[in-house]
């Protein structure tokens, strides 16, 4: 059994304030697209759902920046 595995091409949300991430996690419209919380400031997101996530975050009043 291997002790390491690679997650390739996954999208992440990274926040400065952990409270913002808690707010994002509790949003019903975003929940279907979110995966495991990796740390108190980062959470996995389905890469195919990035446009929907971006639109929802904007409608919540955030100005998320997108990095490749």
């Amino acid at each position, binding site marked *: 059994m291997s002790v*390491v*595995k*690679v997650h390739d091409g996954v*999208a992440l949300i*990274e926040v400065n304030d952990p409270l913002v991430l808690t707010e994002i996690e509790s949003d019903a419209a975003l929940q279907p697209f979110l995966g495991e919380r990796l740390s108190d400031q980062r959470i996995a997101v389905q890469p195919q759902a990035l446009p929907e996530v971006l639109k929802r975050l904007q409608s919540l009043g955030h100005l998320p920046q997108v990095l490749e």
Partner: protein
Amino acid sequence: MNQRFSIRECLHGYSNDTLGAICDYWKLAATSKPSRLKAIERVLGDPFHVKSVLSALDPVSVRILKRTVERGTIPAADLLSVPGLFGTHQPNQALQRLAQSGMILVCPSDRNGVFSLGMLSRERLNGNRGPDLIVPGTVETSLPEPPPLGLGLPVSADPPQTLDAPGPHRITQTMLEVFRLVDLVEPRITGAGELHRNDEVRLNELRRESGLSRELVNLGVMMARQMRCVVVENRKLVTCARADLWTEQTRARRMRDLFCAYVASPGLADLQLFFPDMLAAFEEHLPVDSVRRNYHRELAVSILRVSPEGAWHPVGGLADAIEQSDRNVLFVEERWRSILAHAQDSGPAWQERAWQAGEKRLFTWLVQSFLADLGMVELGGQGQLFRLSPIGRFVLGVGPEPEDAHLNGESSLTVQPDFEVIVYLDRCAPSLQRKLSRFCDRRRAGAASTYVLTEQSIYRGAGSGIPPREALQLLSDSSSHPLPDNVREQVAAWQRKMESITLHRRCTLVEFLDAAKRDSAIASYPNARAIGDRFLLVTADLAPAAAPRIHYGAPLKPALRQEEGLQLRLPWDEVDLFARKRLAEIGELRENDSQDLCLRLERGKTGRPEDWNLIAAQLESLTAEPLRARYRLALRAWSGELGPATAGPATLLRFNDLDTCEAVLDFPEVAEYVEGRVGLYTLLISKGKLAHVKKALRAHGIAIEAGAALADPLPPEKWVEHWAERRKSFDDGNRENQTVSPGVKTVTEYHDALPMYSPRIVCELLADAIARRKPALIEYRPTWSKQASVRRVDPVSLDVSAPSPFLSAFCHTAHSARTFQLARIQGIRILEDDSY
């Protein structure tokens, strides 16, 4: 040079008489077809011979060759439809002379028979596309530059004393406005290639606000698309980096790009201005990708190019010169145009009126409005005379690039404390205007335009590649006064807000079993960032190649294993970052010693019982193999939907094989008494009806005996598989629907089309190949398929006495001997370098 076909392959499609005519031209003493082929191929491959012919060609022929070289392959009818570009009314005679000398060759691209020189006459083409023409490589490399057209513009004897005041450079502003509108709306493109209706309405609203006409915007979009500044991406019209590059060039280069885009664009926005009722007919008669489509523009360019430096011409002179060159440039002499115009008589008088009303206005607009807007011509005599400006001479390729009035952007704007940005267009470079439109909202257009900075506009600018810090710097550099402090602070606050949430589009994470293993390995991943307890964010090239990999770009593969009882397990290697959440929605999760995720279905702990079919579907989508019935059964039983089973005596009728069982069901007199089927071979007969079934089967010669072994020989889990296999073999028998075997390349997989000849020439080629033991590539469409495929064959014999002549050959694709009907060979190439 078009390398699709060799000289020999082209010549194979020629009639023997045509080859004889070419031999006569070159004074070659060859009589048989093979010797003629060889001799002609030799002279056309020799640069010395080719150069001697080219040096003696008339200008019309050189122009025809040049045009053919530019296009690669051109249909004869298309070439003959643009006589004005060659400076003659009868280019077909020159074309025939070129074909006779072999300077131009006919492609083997149809199966209509052999080619003869007479096929190139206009009368023979008579609306048909005609053969495709190419120029041999030796001719292309030695081709001299053609002389300019002999036609010139009439020169005014009375030049104006003063120039008309040049208008504002509307075209640059129009293009910037087109880019801005496209950025704002990002109009969707429908399946028919048109703008989405709602987006078109929105575009029109914005266009009206900007004070631009629909026609001007159409023209701008046409040129922007041709320059690839505006492209279709994800079925939306968007601007791309080329738009920014275009704005950063000097004015002369910007105008050159615009004019070249106008001339080469397949769009007909200019014709729409003057022939709105005939646009559909023009679309039909000016095929896309044909020379004819842009003929009227190219003819104008050819005539403008010979204008002497500094000479003044009457504005109507361009239209007159074009009329003299080819009056039929926009089909004024064609019958269909007079019919569309509801003309009673299509004689010269009507043609003259139509020319004055249509073509003359178009070419006058071209000079007075379009070229003047581009700065390519200077107008004088109150708009009645024109001459080429230095920019015009540069754009047409007959003059050097003029020096540009450099706008450095300094003091071109002022930023107000209320976030308004006032821009003075006369001092503002187009590149600065383009950038402003990306991170500011425009409130008012004009010589002093007003923009405003908002949170949303700054955010939009950041998304298009201008971060807030850079936007501030740009404003600061271009402003006549220092930026107000409140503007600086607010933009910095917006920037901080943007940086509070970051979406990483594609990341590579390395996951370890535990924190200790991660910490011990972190040193071997330079520049890696630790995330949480077990993850490292690394660059894609540093991820360990041998480790199990989960790709999120494609749908995740179902990997849930079905264990004993009602348990399921997901191995740690295959646990993706979304699996834990999905499985937790189904039931209770726990991790085993290997950190595999284990899911156990338990009554009362597995969602809502009444949603059992949804839970089963969810499980089905996650399991690597089809979901076993026991899981579904348990879920259904817990929901209380499972009814009681029934028991009772039955009459079963078992046959010895599957075919008989299937066939019996086709007898209506038997099927009437069959209640169901148990397995593959056994039927359930209605109670008390066995005697009727016996009688009916006996009539078909099937006897029934009593017996104890009624069960199927195969276990129940094999029934479906066996039945599916039998269906498959049945479907394979239906050859009409059969696809090409694996390993056979379809025609589209071959980039180079194979030469296509009539069956008679194919027969000659194959006979020659058999004699010389040369293999061949053939494009063959079998009788049972609609799809042609390319295969390599070693031809063995030809049978031309059969009702349908065929070739016997060894097929390398099928690895066995095959026969091929000559009529179904759609392309052939003899592999001269190989033998068998």
